[in-house]
């Protein structure tokens, strides 16, 4: 289905998809920008401070000021570094962070200029596997950046980051298998539609959700799993040698990752663009399909915002793990738990179908 949708392009469809891609990328960049602001603001509030409030009203222009600052800083490329790879690293990190957004259904479809436009870039029928593929590509941004800086702190941080991501990908996949056994489909759109009818997956898979959430935290390199950036042992982590906008891209990719993973979590476990306690078909008869689609997008966005807040909340609550604790949690706790969850789900499904 990817091929043919991709290859049988007519002009207006191509234009529509391009516009959608542009809109989603702009949107996620803006959200990522304001997540940095929210992070500083929430961190301040949790520590009884006020946070940034000088640039613009309530400090709302702070992210723009930060971005400008990063743009105007001197671009330093270490002499002994590997120049091509040094530049490639942050680019890869950013691209892989962005790529995942292609398969997330941002809403149902809207009618515009007589066309039925689906608010999803590509309804791939292997959506979740695609997400996994892109996530596993995300390792290279870290590894290449850390290695090419030619600095042992960067290298150790890169290796740590990569092994952390690989280890937690396993538990992530296993926790999702239970979910996939229930839905019977890998397409994210189908999963959302099933949740609209049968209730959110979080009700059926609380343990799976917990494991998935922990793994998402680890994949995004967020506290309590931000070992690659452990300042007290590795200085600044894998982007230590970076400066200017290349550093900005790395930092920004983290926030884009957070945004996209929040979207994935809310799509998989919290009904995606499903408006809770409301029958969409009945509502679309009274309000019109377009309004309901926009409302659905708003619902999804609200869920995403909650998860973004959760990311920040956890970061300013829980201290960092030690490296052996991290590996212990991943391999000895989460994977067996996910396996048990999978087995129990399988048994229950078989028992219900009998």
């Amino acid at each position, binding site marked *: 289905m990817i*091929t043919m949708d991709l*290859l049988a392009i007519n002009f207006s469809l191509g234009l529509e998809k391009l516009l959608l891609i542009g809109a989603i990328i702009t949107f996620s960049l803006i959200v990522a920008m304001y997540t940095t602001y929210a992070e500083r603001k929430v961190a301040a509030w949790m520590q009884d401070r006020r946070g940034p409030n000088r640039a613009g009203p309530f400090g709302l222009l702070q992210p723009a000021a930060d971005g400008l600052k990063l743009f105007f800083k001197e671009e330093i490329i270490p002499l002994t570094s590997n120049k091509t790879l040094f530049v490639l690293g942050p680019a890869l990190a950013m691209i892989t962070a962005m790529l995942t957004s292609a398969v997330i259904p941002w809403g149902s479809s809207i009618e515009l200029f007589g066309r039925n436009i689906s608010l999803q870039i590509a309804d791939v*029928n*292997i959506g979740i*596997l*695609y997400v996994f593929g892109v996530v*596993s590509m995300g390792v*290279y941004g870290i590894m*290449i950046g850390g290695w090419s800086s030619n600095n042992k702190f960067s290298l150790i941080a890169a*290796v740590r980051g990569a092994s952390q991501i690989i280890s937690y990908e396993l538990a992530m996949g296993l926790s999702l298998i239970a979910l996939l056994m229930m839905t019977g489909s890998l397409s994210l759109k189908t999963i959302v539609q099933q949740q609209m009818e049968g209730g959110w997956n979080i009700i059926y898979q609380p343990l799976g959700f917990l494991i998935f959430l922990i793994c998402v935290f680890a994949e995004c390199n967020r506290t309590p799993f931000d070992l690659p950036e452990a300042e007290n042992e590795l200085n600044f982590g894998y982007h230590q040698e970076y400066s200017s906008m290349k550093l900005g891209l790395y930092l920004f990719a983290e926030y884009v990752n957070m945004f996209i993973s929040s979207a994935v979590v809310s799509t998989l476990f919290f009904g995606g663009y499903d408006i809770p306690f409301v029958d969409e078909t009945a509502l679309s008869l009274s309000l019109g399909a377009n309004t309901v689609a926009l409302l659905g997008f708003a619902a999804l966005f609200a869920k995403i915002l909650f998860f973004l807040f959760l990311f920040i909340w956890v970061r300013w609550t829980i201290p960092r793990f030690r490296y052996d604790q991290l590996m212990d949690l991943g391999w000895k706790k989460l994977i067996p738990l996910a396996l048990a969850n999978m087995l129990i789900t399988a048994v229950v499904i078989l028992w219900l179908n009998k």
Partner: protein
Amino acid sequence: MHINEILFWFLTALALFSAMMVVFSKNPVHSVLWLIVVFMAITGHYIIMNAQFLAIVNMIVYAGAIMVLFLFVIMFMNLNAESEPQKSKWMKFAAVLSGGSLMLILIAALKDNGGFISSMRGEGSIGLIKNLGKVLFTDYVVPFEISSILFLSAMVGAVVLGKKDSSTIVS
């Protein structure tokens, strides 16, 4: 030219060029990265042939897991272009020559056949997960289970090999 064919030629060129770069780049890390590009190009080929499952498995397993292992090992050994052992010029020449002649022979042997590949939608549904999974878990369930045992033994083997021998530490 149809967009499918354009993609085919582009991916083929990409795959061949980066495969050459794997062999000829001096720095082992560059070799690994070029090999990742080869795998991505091959993934693209699978997508053109509508073998979605294999495409994504290729991407996750080869590009995402196996190559990371290679990268790990190379980074830990701190191999770079200077420490890279090189064969003599004549040996390389002989290797390229013999490889080229092997390719000539193989092409000569295989060039006459009239098959073709179309990428019509309805004709290519075997690569979908649904169909592959059904066959995999019914007809091929025994090889599947055996491969899981293979994995387990590989895992144990890797751990045993990678573990530092306690007697060597003492000495």
